[in-house]
């Protein structure tokens, strides 16, 4: 059963990552390739705290959120000076490479390629949150808080101003909205959120090394968000569950080990392609829009020309 619990906890970590990325893409219109890196930041921060300070899970979560958020600042502030979305993507790629290199090379802190291990089981009020059911329960609580937090933010006045800035920055600023400042804030919050997922990873796996927090991980999370449906409530959740369940399910299929990797990857890729073809706006995406299209036509019909 240990395998199942690992899949569940890492699946929940993926949901948190997807929700965090959806806050960036779906609400603020910013695409970041550095989500996987902030995932790693959270995992390393938690491991370090558990190794050197306290085994408290909540302390690790708070520290990871703050560390992720602070680390986002040197990346987003320069990246957002340019109004071009592409600059932000490229800056996030560069940032991901740099931090990935730091994970691998800062031996005295991160343990280099060997990574960090041997930390105690996380605790909350002296209760051990060991991998297995206790950690699953803690993860479920965390993911509910994260999803609720993201929804609250997206629906707040702050979220509205962000969505307005995403649609038309110039118009938003003419209404007094400080778009650049909001974007820095959302990037900080989303990065902190992604770092929370890393804490779950460290607690479940009990071992942190650079190989889990690569650009490949960021790609996978982006795929979750896009397949699930951008900017929708269930989209990132559904996408994350699906892209966690498919590879996990495939491991139960008996395949000749010589072809296992090949078949797994091909099947995975094919499923993604099929979803994109069948539902281009994502599995949960566009459902609201279909409903809007069914409204009476007169709303979109243009009346007459210039008659004043």
């Amino acid at each position, binding site marked *: 059963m240990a395998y199942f619990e690992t899949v569940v906890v890492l699946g929940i970590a993926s949901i948190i990552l997807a929700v965090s990325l959806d806050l960036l893409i779906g609400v603020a219109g910013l695409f970041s390739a550095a989500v996987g890196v902030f995932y790693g930041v959270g995992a390393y921060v938690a491991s370090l705290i558990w190794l050197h300070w306290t085994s408290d899970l909540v302390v690790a979560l708070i520290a990871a959120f703050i560390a992720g958020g602070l680390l986002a600042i040197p990346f987003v502030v320069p990246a957002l000076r340019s109004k071009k979305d592409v600059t932000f993507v490229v800056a996030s790629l560069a940032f991901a490479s740099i931090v990935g290199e730091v994970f691998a090379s800062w031996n005295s802190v991160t343990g280099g390629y060997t990574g960090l291990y041997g930390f105690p089981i996380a605790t909350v009020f002296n209760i051990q949150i060991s991998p297995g059911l206790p950690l699953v329960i803690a993860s479920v609580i965390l993911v509910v808080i994260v999803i609720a937090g993201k929804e609250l933010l997206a629906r707040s*006045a702050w979220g509205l101003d962000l969505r307005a800035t995403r649609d038309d920055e110039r118009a938003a600023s*003419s209404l007094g909205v400080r778009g650049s400042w909001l974007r820095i804030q959302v990037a900080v919050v989303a990065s902190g959120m992604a770092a929370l997922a890393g804490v779950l990873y460290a607690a479940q796996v009990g071992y942190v090394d650079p190989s889990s927090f690569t650009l490949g991980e960021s790609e996978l999370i982006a795929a979750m968000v896009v397949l699930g449906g951008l900017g929708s409530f269930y989209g990132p959740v559904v996408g994350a569950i699906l892209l966690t369940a498919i590879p996990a399910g495939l491991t139960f299929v008996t395949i000749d080990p010589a072809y296992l990797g090949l078949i797994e990857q091909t099947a995975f890729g094919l499923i993604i392609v099929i979803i994109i073809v069948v539902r281009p706006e994502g599995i949960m995406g566009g459902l609201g829009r279909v409903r809007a299209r069914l409204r009476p036509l007169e709303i979109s019909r243009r009346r007459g020309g210039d008659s004043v």
Partner: protein
Amino acid sequence: MSEIQNNPPLQVVGASMSFGGVKVLTDVDVTIDGDGIVALVGPNGAGKTTLFNVICGALKPTHGEVSSFGETLSGLSAEAIAGHGVYRTFQDLRLFRSLSVRENVCVGLGRTLRKRSTIEKVDALLEELDLAQFEKVRARDLAHGAAKLLTVARVLIHDPKVLLLDEPGAGMDIQSYERLAAALKRRTDLPLVLVEHNLDTVRDLASRVVFLDGGRVIADGPTDEILSRDDLAAVYFGRGGGSGVATDIAKDRE
């Protein structure tokens, strides 16, 4: 009265602006004293929209000063100028297309968004501009007239101290236009400046016309007087005819 004269709602002094050596505004002085609606009129390329952009911080003038109620606006960002109560609309609408009509109106309201008084104010404004029935419709799905009204609702909710409207009536159906005109005329305390191509709209709304040509103010006075001057009509409809402006106006009148 003297305080208004010293610190008018909007004052532009000696504004000049050039793009790559081409002068689009030359030494423009305009004072908006808040008495009635002022229309900026002139042929295409006269500098009307440029003047709007200079006032609202979208463009930095090469020379000149813009102030509102005695406070300097020059050099401030667009959002800071909005913070001083100077709001504008855009010729090309610039709605938040994926947001609903109600959400469009609520942008920039900040913490007051959930207050009962704000919600009631939004309701009343949507009702006044005939948008209540569309409140949940996405802006991108609106007809042109409703979309235009929404650009006005979006600024009126902020209780502007000065309002600049860029071609508010262009391309509107009659009912929408009448809604708009009534809403603007009702706000007699609000200093209003509009850029308008349609002279019927100008006659209907404005009591004063500032006539721009080639980036200069060439006339400034009561609407009837300015619009009845033949020399200005010649400028407006193209000297000798055949200019693009005349055709634009002909189109507007169809």
